[in-house]
């Protein structure tokens, strides 16, 4: 262990020193300049460039630069105004009034008004529009355009997560009124109001955007944004090695072992911050073995989470203690992860009646050995490896876990939705708002809903509803930290880890900083000093 740990510590130091050498003087004494292009490498292509239809991550990346919402998260995960200059929630929590920034223009010159926001809402709830996001607006009673810059939204009941739903990109009424949104040519030639303008899209190859000189915050420094579609991980990495790509994500293996060459350290700045999500083992709580809290607690103690993080993620992750990551204000710092302790685990299992009575090395009760199947989906190498480690660790306490890897669609429809599983290994990517009603409320257990483990706690149910009705931040923090604590205690899942996001950015770009929301939050402030610029800027129209 020591021999393995040693070089890693020193490389970390070198990286840190280099990073300081590259980053700090530049940030201190050079003035941001416009120009250059950034080439972003992506595994997948976009499908529809309209915020209310953009459900895949590639479409989301592009749409995020073309359109803004009324609100957004700042780098500290606080909700701040975006297109809305300010907003007021009425004391009863039933009305939200947004005041829009004046003089924000669409890329075609028209003004962005409250009518556009109203139009966006109407299209979101229009049953003929193929948007998957309609459910966030079900509690809206009415939306009213008070004047050009004022929008009033009334709710049927107080709904705090609603603020997050107004981060949806606003779409242009004057261009889309009367169009069939499902098939309009706009989907491939969008006109936004955001920091970048759409230039061209060559399907499966490239999407090009250019800086919007009239953007209301300021003109973005990087003149061109080129989104290259490179569907193969290995190719994407080779492109990094030749400088063909300026921004991309790394795998833990690449981060630790394959990016320490002098070239890579000179050309790229590596970042590391926790992703917003967690990997877990979910139990079928209808199964009499797993409905016993002591068994779940025993597994929680038998599974060595730091070893999993070290072995599979090369240390690039953190132990998850409950449904919220450390970066979230809903995270409860008082919850400590259960220590890895085989003796305690065995004692808990014995208390639940599981002992090795026949001496075959496996626990048994009523003549039945403790044997279950741990399922996960195909195509995710990390999850398969985690399953294998869990299997090995459970063997030490006498539990026989069998692993089954199944194609994603089959896995979801035939096993999870129909609850034909004993335990699954999966991960959730979470929204920034901590409302996890859909995952843990006892009403969300129908086929196809997300409380598929069948968690049912009246206390948590009540807290989840209270959290939705409370706007006061201090009160919400209390409620969600309590939810974090209770769920950690009840263990409907064994929370395993929060993996790190590992992006690299070409080192010629300055002002790139990691924050709880990632590195992209200040993208319009990134710039490359004149003498380091690589691509000539395209002629502005």
């Amino acid at each position, binding site marked *: 262990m020591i021999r393995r740990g040693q070089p890693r510590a020193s490389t970390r130091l070198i990286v840190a020193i280099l990073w300081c050498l590259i980053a700090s003087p530049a940030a201190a004494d050079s003035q941001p300049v416009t120009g250059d292009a950034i080439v972003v490498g992506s595994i997948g292509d976009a499908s529809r460039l309209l915020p209310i239809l953009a459900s895949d991550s590639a479409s989301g990346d592009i749409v995020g630069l073309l359109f803004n919402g009324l609100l957004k998260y700042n780098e500290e995960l606080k909700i701040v105004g975006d297109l809305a200059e300010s907003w007021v929630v009425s004391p009863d929590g039933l009305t939200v009034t947004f005041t829009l920034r004046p003089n924000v223009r669409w890329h075609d010159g028209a003004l962005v008004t409250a009518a556009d926001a109203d139009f966006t809402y109407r299209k979101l709830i229009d049953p003929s529009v193929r948007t998957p996001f309609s459910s966030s607006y079900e509690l809206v009673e009415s939306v009213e355009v008070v004047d050009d810059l004022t929008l009033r939204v009334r709710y049927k009941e107080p709904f705090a997560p609603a603020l997050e739903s107004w981060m949806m990109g606003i779409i242009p009424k004057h261009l889309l009124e009367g169009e069939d949104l499902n098939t309009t040519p706009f989907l491939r030639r969008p006109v936004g109001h955001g920091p970048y303008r759409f230039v061209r899209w060559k399907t*499966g190859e490239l999407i090009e955007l250019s800086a919007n000189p009239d953007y209301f915050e300021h003109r973005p420094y990087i003149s061109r944004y080129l989104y290259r579609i490179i569907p193969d991980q290995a*190719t994407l990495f080779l492109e990094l090695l030749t400088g063909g790509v300026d921004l991309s994500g790394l795998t833990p293996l690449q981060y630790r072992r394959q990016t320490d060459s002098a070239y890579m350290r000179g050309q790229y700045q590596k970042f590391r911050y926790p992703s917003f999500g967690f990997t877990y083992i979910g139990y079928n709580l209808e199964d009499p073995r797993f409905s016993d809290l002591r068994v779940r607690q025993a597994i929680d103690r038998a599974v060595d989470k730091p070893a999993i993080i070290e072995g599979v993620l090369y240390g690039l992750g953190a132990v998850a203690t409950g449904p919220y990551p450390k970066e979230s204000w809903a995270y409860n710092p008082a919850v400590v992860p259960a220590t890895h302790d085989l003796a305690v685990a065995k004692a808990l299992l014995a208390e639940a009646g599981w002992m090795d009575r026949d001496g075959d090395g496996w626990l048994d009760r009523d003549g039945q050995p403790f044997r279950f199947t741990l399922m996960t989906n195909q195509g995710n190498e990390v999850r398969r490896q985690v399953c294998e480690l869990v299997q090995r660790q459970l063997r030490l306490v006498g539990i026989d876990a069998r692993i089954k890897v199944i194609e994603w669609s089959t896995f979801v429809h035939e096993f999870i939705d129909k609850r034909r599983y004993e335990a699954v290994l999966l991960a959730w990517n979470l929204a920034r708002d901590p409302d996890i009603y859909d995952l843990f409320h006892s009403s969300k257990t129908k086929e196809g809903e997300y409380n598929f483990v069948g968690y049912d706690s009246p206390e948590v149910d009540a807290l989840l509803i209270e959290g939705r009705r409370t706007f006061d931040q201090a009160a919400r923090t209390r409620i969600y930290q309590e939810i974090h604590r209770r769920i950690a205690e009840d263990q409907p899942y064994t929370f395993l880890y929060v993996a790190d996001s590992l992006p690299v950015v070409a080192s010629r770009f300055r002002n790139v900083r990691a924050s709880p929301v990632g590195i992209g939050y200040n993208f319009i402030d990134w710039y490359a000093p004149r003498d380091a610029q690589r691509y000539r800027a395209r002629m502005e129209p």
Partner: protein
Amino acid sequence: MGTYLFRRLLTLIPVLLWITVISFGIMHLAPGKPTDVSGGFNPKVSLEARQRLEQLYGLDQPVHVQYGRWLSRIVRLDFGRSFLDDRPVMEKIAERLPVTLTINAWSFLLIFGITIPLGVLAAVKPGGAFDRLTTLLVFIGFSMPSFWLALLCMALFGVRLHWLPISGLHSLDYESFGLVGRCLDTAWHLILPVGITAFVSLAGMSRYMRSAMLDVLRQDYIRTARAKGLPGAWILFHHGLRNALLPVITILGLSLPDLIGGSVIAETIFSIPGMGRLFYEAVMARDYPVVMALVTVGAMLTMLGNLLADAGYAIADPRIRVEAHR
């Protein structure tokens, strides 16, 4: 000849119909739905929202109703719209087809340009040094996984030597080039994908060519030609090659669907937006309209290729022509 072709064409219709029924059935038997892509396992997308999407795409109807609707559109040559991005399927295919056609046409030219002389020369002295050397080489190509070879070549020619681009079809500044510049740029990007696609397929064709040539060279008329004292090269290429090309016509005909069906692996590794990736991505996303369109077009081309090969025989080989007349 005319009635022969017409009769053959008629028999193709039920075959085509069956192919579509079976592939439609298989696609729908596969677990998962097109709506999984936009809303599967995302807590922001509720069950009701997903059911609404299914209804909008007509996926709540029984399979035979869905098939009937599809068929009635197909006979009007309407291939529908993709579930993935709601664009007309034909538009998506038209966008990808030229890329795949270009790559495959060039690699076909390369394959035939190399394997025909290779096979002929190997057949002149079977078991000789040249025969053995080429056999070794083509089988190295045949037994090497193409993705692995591709990655090695990318690492060598792209990363180490900087001679060739690693992936993609165009440089980033392609739009600002002149016509000649654009052609050169594309050609430069195509060297690796075309070269590798061709290299791994050399074995098959050169073996066909060699054995066909060996067969022909054993024939009496070749011996007669030699006895007449004709020059060796003349015998080989005028008498030998023309006859040895007959089986190659069959293969050419059967290769017609390959011409438009790209290779998933090569296109993925080289980041080329071709037909192979279109099909693969459509299957993974359960994008039924795109999958069905590609299957139908592929089946049609396979049958057309068979027909053309038969017709080619009829032209090249009088015996078949006579039989057809009877």
